[in-house]
């Protein structure tokens, strides 16, 4: 025979953000550390080598921060004008940065004075990057040109003049030393090959390109500009794979998570969105206080650094998971007892009889199974359950009503117990999802306790509160109905077809209007 069937707890959809493994992962950061810089933070770059310091470019300075330091451990400030795009080399020992005056400077991390200076651009250099062979630097400038520099003798090797507007972003391939891409305000993203004298692929983004990003494999290119983030398949000759429009304002920066599974984009609308790189759906988003200009993720996503227009650098560190292990371990049974009988191999003629699995019942279910109805009601009216999970309480009240014993369960309570029930009613009566059940319970309570009313001021006060609540609710309903009538009239004049009204009415009303509780 079938066993006891537990009470069905009505599950309601949780409003707001759904809890997924992504939200759990990206919410698992400590509260951000705010660092004030001198101007808008235009670039944040992590050193690819331990200890994973990061370079922050703001105004005419470049600060190097240690991973957990709040103060810069090093500062490069020998720029006459605004510095741009301080970028580490792959080995983390060299740093290159462009500047407003058109110069490019190469620094040794340990030194202070620039090792090399590349002169040749006539206007501000907004993007610089090292090529994959470490000996060249790619730069793009507002003079519409893209140049390739040789580091050892600080000479210009190549100049590409294919862009017709400012070149504001670029990125060198991590695999091929000769390939790099640049994005420009002329709405194009071009891929150049140093072995030829011209671009090999050019794609039309449609908006001024603010940021480009090559996947580590080099097969996919991500470009950001305007409100769009676009993903291009470079192996198919620059075919548009997907176009994402999830921001309200210009997207300024792009970043890949360390696993390559997630793509992050920061925008002037003060949001960072996290996309899955398989489905290109937004899986999470962060809010920041100001418009975001730059964004970087540390090794293993340990730190998220976001630079904003107001000069604030927001640094979020991942919560350490080691804490959980530090709890004192309970002594467990010996390994021998633990595996006892588990490693027995079933012989051919053995008949396996499993121990009947014990069905776990909630405490209220155990009470209901044994018809301890008042106890079950008491249990779900405990503040712990009634506040955190009111749907369980309501489901139990509903179940008691279905069994026809709600009046018995509510009767015979003293002042403290009845005020607990009334508190719950006052808190939840006006919620449309609970109202039908709770109004019935309230009516029963009033019927039961009407003869003894006036004996306890505490309970009387609660009753008055309940009455006020119901009156207020009736007023609301009346107003809602009036609004609905008005809207109906508006819709009726708008719709041409008189025969059909395709309007779906608001379903939540109508519960309370014909309910009046006299106390």
């Amino acid at each position, binding site marked *: 025979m079938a066993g006891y069937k537990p009470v*069905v707890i*009505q599950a309601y959809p949780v409003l707001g953000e759904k809890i997924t493994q992504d939200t759990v992962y990206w919410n698992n950061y400590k509260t951000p550390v705010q660092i004030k810089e001198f101007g808008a933070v235009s670039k944040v770059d992590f050193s690819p080598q331990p200890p994973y310091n990061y370079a922050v470019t703001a105004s005419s300075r470049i600060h190097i921060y240690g991973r957990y330091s709040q103060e810069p451990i090093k500062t490069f400030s020998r720029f006459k004008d605004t510095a741009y795009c301080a970028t580490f080399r792959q080995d983390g020992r060299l740093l290159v940065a462009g500047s407003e005056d058109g110069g490019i400077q190469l620094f040794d991390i340990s030194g202070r004075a620039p090792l090399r200076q590349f002169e040749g651009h006539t206007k501000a250099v907004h993007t610089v990057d090292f090529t994959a062979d470490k000996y060249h630097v790619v730069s793009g400038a507002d003079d519409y040109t893209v140049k390739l520099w040789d580091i050892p003798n600080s000479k210009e090797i190549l100049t590409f003049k294919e862009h017709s507007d400012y070149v504001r972003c670029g990125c060198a391939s991590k695999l091929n030393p000769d390939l790099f891409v640049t994005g420009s305000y002329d709405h194009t993203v071009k891929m150049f090959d140093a072995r030829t004298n011209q671009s090999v692929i050019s794609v039309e983004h449609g908006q001024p390109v603010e940021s480009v990003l090559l996947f580590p494999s080099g097969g996919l290119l991500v470009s950001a500009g305007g409100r769009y983030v676009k993903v291009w398949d470079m192996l198919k000759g620059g075919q548009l794979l997907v176009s994402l429009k999830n921001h309200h304002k210009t997207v300024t920066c792009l970043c890949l998570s360390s696993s390559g599974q997630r793509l992050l984009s920061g925008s002037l609308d003060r949001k960072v969105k996290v996309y899955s790189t398989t489905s290109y*759906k937004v899986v999470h988003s962060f809010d920041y206080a100001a418009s975001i200009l730059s964004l970087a993720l540390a090794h293993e996503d340990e730190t998220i650094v976001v630079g904003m227009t107001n000069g604030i650098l927001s640094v979020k560190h991942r919560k350490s998971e080691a804490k959980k292990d530090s709890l004192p371990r309970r002594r467990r049974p010996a390994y021998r007892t633990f595996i006892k009988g588990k490693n027995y191999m079933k012989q051919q003629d053995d008949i396996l009889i499993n121990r009947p699995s014990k069905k776990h019942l909630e405490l209220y279910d155990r009470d209901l199974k044994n018809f301890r109805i008042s106890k079950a009601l008491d249990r779900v009216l405990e503040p712990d359950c009634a506040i955190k999970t009111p749907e369980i309480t309501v489901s139990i009240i509903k179940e008691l009503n279905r069994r026809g014993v709600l009046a018995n369960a509510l009767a015979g309570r003293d002042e403290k117990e009845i005020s607990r029930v009334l508190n719950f009613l006052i808190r939840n009566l006006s919620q449309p999802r609970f109202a039908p059940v709770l109004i019935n319970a309230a009516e029963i309570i009033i019927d039961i306790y009407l003869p003894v009313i006036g004996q306890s001021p505490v309970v009387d006060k609660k009753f008055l509160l309940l009455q006020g609540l119901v009156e207020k609710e009736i007023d609301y309903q009346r107003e809602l109905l009036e609004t609905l009538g008005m809207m109906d009239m508006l819709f009726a004049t708008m719709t041409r077809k008189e025969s059909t009204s395709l309007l*779906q009415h608001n379903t939540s009303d109508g519960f309370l209007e014909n309910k009046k509780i006299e106390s």
Partner: protein
Amino acid sequence: MVEVESLRVVRCGGSELNFRRAVFSADSKYVFCVSGDFIKVYSTATEECVHILQGHRNLVTGIQLNPKNHLQLYSCSFDGMIKLWDYIDGILIKTFIVGCKLHALFTLACAEDSVFVIINKEKPDVFQLVSVKLPKSSSQEIEAKELSFVLDYINQSPKCIAFGNEGEYVAAVRDFYLSVYFFKKKTTSRFTLSSSRNKKHAKNNFTCVACHPKENCIATGHGDGKIRLWRNFDDEKKYTYTCLHWHHDLVMDLAFSVTGSSLLSGGRESVLVEWREAAEKNKEFLPRLGATIEHISVSPAGDLFCTSHSDNKMIIIHRNLEASAVIQGLVKDRNIFTGLMIDPRTKALVLNGKPGHLQFYSLQSDKQLYNLDITQQEYINDYGLIQIELTKAAFGCYGNWLATVEQRQEKETELELQMKLWTYNKKTQGFVLNTKVNMPHEDHITALCFCNAEKSENPTLVTTSKDGHFKVWILTDDSDIYKKAVGWTCDFVGSYHKYQATNCCFSEDGSLLAVSFEEIVTIWDSETWELKCTFCQRAGKIRHLCFGRLTCSKYLLGATENGILCCWNLLSCALEWSAKLNVRVMEPDPNSENIAAISQSSMGSDLFVFRPSEPRPLYIQKNISREEVQWGVFVPRDVPESFTSEAYQWLNRSQFYFLTKSQSLLTFSTQSPEEKLTPTSKQLLAEETLPTTPFYFILGKHRQQQQDDKLNEALKNELVQLPLTENIPAISELLHTPAHVLPSASFLCSMFVNSLLLSKETKSAEEIPDDVSMEEEKESVDSDEENNFTEKVQDTNNTDLGKDIIHQLSKSEEKELRKFRKVDYSWITAL
């Protein structure tokens, strides 16, 4: 089918199993129960129905084992006959004609050749217990007119009569008193409950009685849930009684165990209570039996109990209160809201079952296949409780989807509605809940239907409600990057001038949806959900709505409350024809254009079968049932029949079943009653001489196979005698040597198994030229004697075996023996 007889309405299964107490056979292998005009014999181990004893012409009202021969069974019926059956073979032995309506039957071991029956003589409410002397005669039908009166003014239910202490007395209860008749003293004592004398509405009336098998003790059940144990009742002054109280509602039945050490009771709580030593403290429970316990019976061997339940179910329960088998018939004790449906997968009839369940019932085997728990809530059986009702259900997409609607209404304004959508899971072979919709509408749902068009790629469901809306639900992809999921969402809400929507129906190709709003039928395009046209006949609210099929798909049929059947042409948007017919049930045949309509008049229900293309019916059958027909359904046949007569051609591909208000399931059949009534199960009850041990499976099968082989070879007339397993020396050696002197089992195993496998080799041995020397022939005689049992078996199997073959047999047998001897020696040397 050469000659077609007239079409008859026949009852098709689903009769009550819980009408009377079940009776166990003496060895507890079978349990008998009355089932309409039949008696059914079930195996207690396999739940299988082994025999149906047919012969009574009216409701069978009582069965009892013959106390003198426990392989025979007495039965009595409303047709005034007592019949004696051999239940092992399912043969009617004798019929005793009493002549008046018999309400119950009792037998007593001490009462020689007479049985006790309950009859009512004059007034309809006055019942008597009489003993009927069964005359001894060799004829099949005997008049038994010798009635002797025992007790008067008793309750008609057999639960209210009990014979006690090996037939010393009989106890009967009615209303508020208990009467005991002592056979020896021929006196009747009457006991009245003192508290009930002056109360008008006292609830402690007697409901049932049981007598202790050994002692002078009577247990009575009462309407207030108390059980009273009466003692010393031979003295009208000094009688005493004790009370046992656990039930909170009336006690439905009581039974003492065979030894009398414990008392079983059951009631509406669906809990079997066992009172040990008749003490209030020692009680054991078997809860959650599903429905009200109507009857309790105990097997004569004492190892099994059987409870009959109001949901047409019998549960076989072990002595240690463990349910071991459930025999479930068609559940019929509730209102059928869902109507009759056919599960496209199993072809089972689907309708309301247990409270909150949907039952799948096989029409072929008259057996419930399974119950689908829709409400998934603990069922509390209590009087006056408002339960959740399963009101609507529909299958869609070839049985892949099932939609159900359940409702509970306590007060006018408080309606709880829930719609559930179930998907068929191929892995578990069952329906799994997919989507739950709370309050899909604001008022009762009046109809729901799936779009069952073949080409439709997206499953669509339409619900109509009294709140004036109809809603279209579609299956949508709910999956995100983490999981794949599908769910149902509302796609469209339509209404028409705030009239109540009453019916809905999709056309066969799924392109049109017809929704009726009270008197008006609206046609909607299922692509755009635009209103295409409306039909209105001003002939009352639409009760049924259906599209024509196949060649008649341009017609729409509607039956109204005022008794008008309308047929509209969808191409011309005009009324094609209408007829005055008070249609109760209108069902289209899924395999043809035919539509069956059952009309209701004061005379009874009539069946009309017609095609929408012409108003003249194909077939009319008047007066199919005296009562109102509630639901009907066409069931596609597995094998199409070919009726030559034009009038019956509508039954070629489908069969029509219908359910009347009293919930009897009926169908049409052209077969003669005898043909129809041939027992469904002809298998012989296995001769139970051999116990079915694992060893039997090895040896018994082996022997069976040998017998079969022998039969075959006898036919070919070159019969070879095969050795019996008993005669194989290796086996007899093995079985007769004391275990402690035998070598280890693993050592003997291969030899033992080899000796069993020899039968194959004998066939080849037959081809080897016979080189038996003369001196060894002597032994063959011995082996003949050894094998005479085999021959007997063989004789019984095939009687025309000549004696001349025996000699041949012995020769080959002898050959075998020699071989075995070799085996035997090797076995000993191996030691």
